[in-house]
C-alpha cells in the first residue's frame, strides 16, 4: 500500500490525462454529430447487393427489386430496442402504402423472422445481412437507419434513428412526393 512519491503523483494525475483524451474524442464526436452528418454516399448510387431471406422460403431482397422505384430501405435488427419502438410506426406507414424495404442487420435470420412474426411485417421485401456487408457499404452507424433511394438508384437521404411522425411528415414524405413527381 506504500507507493513511491513519483508513482503516487503519476497515479494521481492519470485520471486527468484519461479524461483529457476523452474530452478530445467527445469534441470531435460533436463535430460529427451523427444525426446531421450526411452519409458520404448521399447523391451516389446505392451499392449492388443480393441478400438472403429472413424467413425460410422467402425470396430475400436484392438491388433489382427496387430498380426504377422510389423506396425507403430500413436497417433494423431483432436485438435493437429503438427498432422495436420504431416498428409500430413502420407498420402504420406500410398500411398507408409507403414503400419500405428491410435489411435485417447483424442478426440471426431466425431471430429476425421471430420479430416479424410477433410485431408484424411492414416490408415489401426484407433480406438478412448477418455479415453486415451491405450495411458496411451503405455506411450504417447504428440501427435503426433508413435510406431514401430514388428511381435511378441514388441515395437521396439518410435518416439516423427511428422514423417518427415528425420525421415522416417533415422530411421523408415531402421528399418522396417530390422524387415521385419530379423524374
Amino acid at each position, binding site marked *: 500500500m506504500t507507493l513511491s512519491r513519483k508513482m503516487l503523483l503519476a497515479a494521481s494525475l492519470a485520471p486527468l490525462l484519461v479524461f483529457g483524451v476523452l474530452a478530445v474524442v*467527445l469534441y470531435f464526436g460533436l463535430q*460529427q454529430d451523427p444525426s446531421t452528418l450526411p452519409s458520404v454516399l448521399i447523391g451516389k448510387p446505392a451499392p449492388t447487393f443480393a441478400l438472403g431471406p429472413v424467413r425460410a422460403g422467402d425470396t430475400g431482397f436484392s438491388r433489382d427489386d427496387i430498380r426504377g422505384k422510389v423506396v425507403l430501405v430500413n436497417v433494423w435488427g431483432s436485438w435493437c430496442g429503438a427498432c422495436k419502438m420504431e416498428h409500430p410506426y413502420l407498420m402504420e406507414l406500410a398500411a398507408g402504402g409507403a414503400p419500405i424495404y428491410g435489411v435485417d442487420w447483424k442478426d440471426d435470420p431466425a431471430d429476425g423472422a421471430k420479430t416479424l412474426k*410477433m410485431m408484424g411485417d411492414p416490408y415489401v421485401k426484407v433480406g438478412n445481412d448477418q455479415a453486415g456487408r451491405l450495411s458496411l457499404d451503405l455506411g450504417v452507424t447504428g440501427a435503426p437507419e433508413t435510406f431514401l433511394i430514388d428511381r435511378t438508384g441514388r441515395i437521396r437521404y439518410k435518416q439516423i434513428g427511428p422514423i417518427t411522425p415528425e420525421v415522416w411528415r417533415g422530411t421523408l414524405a415531402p421528399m418522396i412526393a417530390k422524387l415521385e413527381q419530379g423524374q
Partner: protein
Amino acid sequence: MIPEIGRFCLYLALGLSIVQMAAGFAGPLRASPRIMALSQSAAFGQFLFVAVAFAILVRLFATSDFSVMVVAANSHTTKPLFYKIAATWGHHEGSMLLWVLVLALFGAAIAYFGRSMPDTFRARVLGVQGLIGVFFLLFIIFTSNPFVRLFPVPLEGEGFNPLLQDPGIVSHPPMLYLGYVGFSTAFSFAVAALIEGPAGGLWVRYARPWILAAWICLTIGITLGSLWAYSVLGWGGWWFWDPVENASLMPWLLGTALVHSALVVERRFSLERWTLLLSILTFSMSLLGTFVVRSGILTSVHAFAVDPARGTFILIILILATGGGLALYGLRAPGLPSGRVFGLFSREGSLVLNNILLVTITGTVFLGTFYPLFIELSGKDKISVGVPYYALTFVPLAAPLLLAMVIGPLLLWRKDSARGWAARIGPGVFLAFSVLILTGAATHGRNLLLAVWLGLATWLIVGAVLILVRRARIGQAPFADSLKLARALPMATWGAIIAHLGIGLLVCGLGGATTAKEEGVALLGPGQSTAFIGRQLTLKDISTGKGPNFEYVRARIDAVAPDGDVIHLTPERRFYPERQSETTKASVRETPLGNLYVALGDQVTDGRWTVRFYSHPLAIWIWLGGFVMALGGVLALVGNRTQSGPRSGDSAAEVRAGSRPAPAPAAAGAEGVA
C-alpha cells in the same frame, strides 16, 4: 407579462448563484463569518427564484399559454390538466429547468441542514455547488430559455408525444433528476475537501447522507423508468441498453461503489484518496449523461431536439467541472496521508473488490455506449452495440460481484481467517445449491440457466439474512438476547441487510423473466381462442371509444386456466389526432409468480386482430427489488441522521468480538478543517 417574470427570476437566480459561489470561496479565505453566511443566504435565494421560475412555467403549461414557444410546441388544449402540467418537464427546456431546480434544492438543503459541519467547509461546499449553478443557469439562459415568446400566437399547440402521456412521466423524471443531479453533492464535498487539504476523512461523514439520498432517488428513478417502459412500449421489454438508459446506469453503478467506499473511509480511515476520486467521477457520469442526452451525439430513443450549440456548451461545462476537479485531485492527492493498512482477506478487502468490480462494470457500459462513436471517429468498420455485447461483458463481471457481496459483510474488519469465515457462509452455500438443484429437478434439467439464476438469488437473500443472524447472534445466544441485539442494531446495518435483500429479489426477477419467458402471437376474431402457457385465451369482443384526447380500440380477452381461474385483460390501441400517431396500451396481470402480458396488434384484412402474449415469470420482483434496495438506502440514511453524535457505528456484537477499530482520532480530523 408572466413569462417575462419567469425570465427575470432566472436572471436573479444566476446573480445569486454567482454570489453563492464567490462568497463560498472568499469567506473561508478571509475567515469572515459574515461572508460565509452570505453564501448560505444566496443558496436559499437561488432556490427560491428557480422555484418561482419553475412554478411559472407550470402555470403557463396549465393554462395553455401558446404565446410561449415551448408550450406551443409541446402541449395541446385537449390534454387532461394532469398531463398539461407534466408536459412542463417533458421537453428539453423544461427538463433543464427541473435539473437546475434540483441542483438549487440540494444547495439550499446543504445550507439549511449542514449546521453540524465546520463553517468554512460548508461555505466551500456551497461555493462549488454555486459554481455548478452558474454554469447551468448560463446554459439555460443562453441556449435553452423556456420563456421565449412566439409570434404570431398559434391557436392550438402541436401536441405532446403520446408515449409520454402516462402516469410514469409524473414520477420518473423528477426522481431520476433528484438522483442524477443529487450526486453534485458528492462532487462539491470532495472538491471542498481537496481545497481544505487533508481532512482525515471527516468530509465523508458530512457527505455520506447526501450521497445516500441521491443514490436512493436514482435507484427509484431507474426502477420507475423501467416499469414505465415495460407497460408503455407494448413488447414487454424492461431494459434496452439504450445510450440514455446507460447514462443513468453509470452514475448509479459508481454511486453504489461510492456508498461502499465511503463506509471504509468513515470506519477505517482507508481509501480516502480513492473515495475523493470516485466522488468526482460519479458526478462526472451525471454530467456526461446530460451531455449525451442533450447533444444528440449518440442515437437514442430518448433523444431531445438536437442543437449542436447546446452540446458544445455542456461539453465545456463537463470539461471545466470534471477537468477542474481531476486537476485539483492530481495536485492534492499525493499530499494526503496514506490510509491504514489492511489485509486483503478482510471487510475492507471485500469492499475494495466491490469497488473494482463496480468500476469495471461501469467501464464496460461506458465502452458499449461510446464504442459506436469511437469507431466512427477512427473511420474504420461500422459497428453497433446491442444486447449480445452486454450479455458477454456485464454478466461475467456482475456474477463475481453478486457472489462477493454475500461474503463481504460477513468478514471482519482489518483481517479475517478463512476458517472463521467458511463457517459463517456455510448456510448460504448450502441453501443456494439446494435451490439450484431443486429448480433444476423441477424443470427436468431443461432450464439450467433458471436454476443458476434462482440459486444466485437464494445466495443473495440468505446472505442478507446471515448479516442479521451474525449480528444478533441468532442460534448462538439465547433467543431473548438475540432479540435485544437485533433491536440494538444500528439502522445502517438494517439498511445494508434490506438493500442486499433487494438485490436478491432483483436477481430473482431478472432470472425468471429472462430465462423462463414465453411469447406467442395469434390472429383472433371475436369469440375465437388460442392456448398459451396452459391457459385458454379468448377474445370476447372489440370495442371502440374516446378518451380525453385520444380514440381507442379495446379488446376484452379472458384467460381461463384449467382449474377455472379467469384473468380478464383489456389491451388497447390508442390514436392521438393531435399528433396523428398511435400507441399501444398493453394489459398486464401481475402476480408474485409471474406476469401475463397482452398487447393488441393490427387488424388484418379478414377482420381478425393480431394479439401478442407474453409470460414473464417472476418479473414483478425486478421492480420490487429496486424499491426494496431504495428502502434499504432510506434506513441507512435515517440511521446516519440519528447517529451523528460520537462515532458509534459499530455494532455491539463486533465490540464483543474485539474487532472495534481504535477510537477515531477526532483531533487529527479537525486539524485540516481549522
